[in-house]
């Protein structure tokens, strides 16, 4: 019998198969950062699932930032290694990816996938005290430096976004009476998040909330809700907790009913691709966006870099979505925090990175955010109101940059 190791007996094939499966399952511990000199950025972006419309671009943006940064010498001489695995927008899967990457690579920073992940991982992250985290969620209760010390938001909370919309309405209103506002939101954690605080802010600004409508996230038949809005006669309708549907249907039916309203939205329904998909309903669409759009590169060196790098690395990408910019900005913040720690000769642990994060004040993002950014409160609480121009098919600024308290 030939005992050569190359002889593929059934036992050897089985053994090799098990070995590969074990390797694939992450049994071996990968070398630590210090040994390789690389700094690992871990991530569990939702590349598939209901959030894939943004998740893939977030993953690409963060990954491309790491590659771009490496071409500029990395962080204080250390190359960045980006390791991202699909979370499928499922909490179990996101937690599993988090544990796997943390166990195998011990990254000092990690980008999750959702509010549910951020809440489920919060205690473990606090307990570990070794990783700074963020996610695509802008849920208001995640900005809590006391209970979630190692979490930050690369933009304003949903509450802050709604406040910006109300401030815009208040500032642009003419006459003694303030315009009437209706709130339409989805019956989800995402949809309900800013509502209570928005109502309080409206009261403080003297803006009457004349109607409040809760729908399912992807509602189709909205005629009964439109009838309610018609009776309430709002001047502005703020939609929150949706990406696209049922917003176009609402706008279409409200216009058919002869209503003269200005529809408004928040970040996830403000990307150009999403607004383009609204078709005719997009006319007059307004909303809040914390970042510049990728076509707005004037006096914005980072936006120029994003556009140039995306054109080089992803020639098939016709338009660079704002989600890509978000991923890029997350990479910038992670790098800034790490760089500040390394320059100060501090080790990359939770308390040091938290302190470095909170020390970021009047930080120039190179034009990604319109104002100098501060992360003292673990969020970048600024944004701008944009309006869709149906002729140019671009979202154009309707206000200056607004910073909320």
């Amino acid at each position, binding site marked *: 019998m030939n005992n050569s190791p190359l002889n593929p007996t059934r036992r050897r094939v089985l053994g090799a198969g098990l070995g590969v499966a074990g390797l*694939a*399952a992450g*049994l071996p511990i990968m070398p630590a950062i210090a040994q390789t000199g690389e700094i690992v950025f871990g991530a569990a972006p939702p590349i598939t699932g209901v959030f894939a419309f943004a998740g893939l671009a977030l*993953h690409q943006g963060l990954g491309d930032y790491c590659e771009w940064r490496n071409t500029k010498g990395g962080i204080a001489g250390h190359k960045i290694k980006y390791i991202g695995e699909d979370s499928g927008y499922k909490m179990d899967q996101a937690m599993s990816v988090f544990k*796997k990457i943390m166990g195998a690579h011990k990254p000092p920073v990690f980008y999750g996938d959702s509010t*549910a992940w951020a*809440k489920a991982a919060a205690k473990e992250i606090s307990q570990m005290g070794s990783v700074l985290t963020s996610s695509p969620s802008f849920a208001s209760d995640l900005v809590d430096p006391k209970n979630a010390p190692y979490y930050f938001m690369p933009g304003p909370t949903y509450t802050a976004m709604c406040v910006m919309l109300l401030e815009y309405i208040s500032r642009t209103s003419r006459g003694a009476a303030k315009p009437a506002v209706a709130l339409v939101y989805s019956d989800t954690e995402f949809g309900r998040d800013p509502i209570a605080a928005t109502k309080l802010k409206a009261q403080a600004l003297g803006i009457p909330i004349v109607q409040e409508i809760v729908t399912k996230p992807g509602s189709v038949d909205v005629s009964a809700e439109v009838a309610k809005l018609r009776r309430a006669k709002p001047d502005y309708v703020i939609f929150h907790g949706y990406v696209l549907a049922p917003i176009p249907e609402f706008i279409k039916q409200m216009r058919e009913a002869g209503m003269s309203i200005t529809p408004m939205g928040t970040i996830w329904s403000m990307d150009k691709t999403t607004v383009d998909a609204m078709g005719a309903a997009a006319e007059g669409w307004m909303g809040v966006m914390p970042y510049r759009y990728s076509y707005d590169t004037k006096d914005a060196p980072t936006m120029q870099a994003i556009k140039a790098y995306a054109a080089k690395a992803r020639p098939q990408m016709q338009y660079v979505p704002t989600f890509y910019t978000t991923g890029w900005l997350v990479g910038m913040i992670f790098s800034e925090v790490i760089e500040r720690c390394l320059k100060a000769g501090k080790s990359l642990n939770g308390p040091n990175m938290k302190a470095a994060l909170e020390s970021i004040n009047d930080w120039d993002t190179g034009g990604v955010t319109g104002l100098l950014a501060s992360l003292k409160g673990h969020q970048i609480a600024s944004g701008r109101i944009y309006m869709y121009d149906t002729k140019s098919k671009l979202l154009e600024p309707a206000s200056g940059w607004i910073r909320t308290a």
Partner: protein
Amino acid sequence: MRIRDFRQSYEQDEAIWQTPTSRLWLAGLLVLLALFPAFANGYIVGLACILGIHVIASAGLNIMTGYTGLISLGHAAFMGVGCYTAAFLAQYGVPFYLTIPIAGLVAALLGLVVGIPSLRIKGLYLAVATLAMQFILVFIFREWEPVTGGVRGVNVPNARLFGFELNNDTRMYYAIAFCAIVLLIAARNLFRTRIGRAFIAIRDKDISAEVLGIDLFRYKLLAFAIGSFYAGVAGALLGFFYRAMTPEYFTLTLSIFYLAAIIVGGLGTMLGTILGAFFMTLVPELLRALVSLIALWAPRAIEILSPMQEMVFGVLIIGFLVFEPHGLVEIWRRVRRYFHLWPFRA
């Protein structure tokens, strides 16, 4: 070849572990389970915890659906009941060892309520009734803010057991493994009793079972209660494992996940439950690991291959249902039979 397996009494024939070999395997398995965290990294231990929770929940559904023939599409909601009960009790300092059974009992009580229509309706009609319960309970999770925390969810304090804080995956692993073993043994034993046999009789032909003197109402309710108890315990353990929970976890998709697990594993067998839960939990994990492995050489492959994992997983499920409609347990039985008769032909 299997030898020295000569049964002389009904008790021997009904024994759970019939031969010294099977007892040896079991002892080996227990030792392996006990030593597992010493050899596995945090990710694998975390995965084992989730797997244990899925095994417990699937076992409950298999008791209802696989053994008694009562289709339930509300299993995830019963898990939610257990999870929120545990979270609520833990906030008031109720000990972990009491919280877990109480969470199971609360879910079981609700299971009794859901079971009431099962006397009048069965099959798809019962599935729709349980589906309604799924939606009602999720609505309650979202709206009953003082208890469930509403849409924002609830934080679960760390479990404490005899002075030990179960604040990491390894400690939770032992708690989950203990519960899973006890509940699986209990379920296996259940089907050696009159109650278990009554369940099977109801599944096979409820009218005949009634003719034989089985009180259909009582046993159907009991099946719902026991199945829901398992779901409640699984939900409570899930809450303690993640230490935070939102209503969005307990969706219809999760109920279907468990239904798929028991169908792929094998309806009406406890081993099928375990194999099904393994399949549904580990196959997507292995597929993702494979994608990550490929991504080491081609980093951008993840963007194309990630969406394909779902497809491959779906095709695998269809494949198993087409080529092995009796579930994974039948494959296991064939392998076992082969070794029992080896070197002779099966």
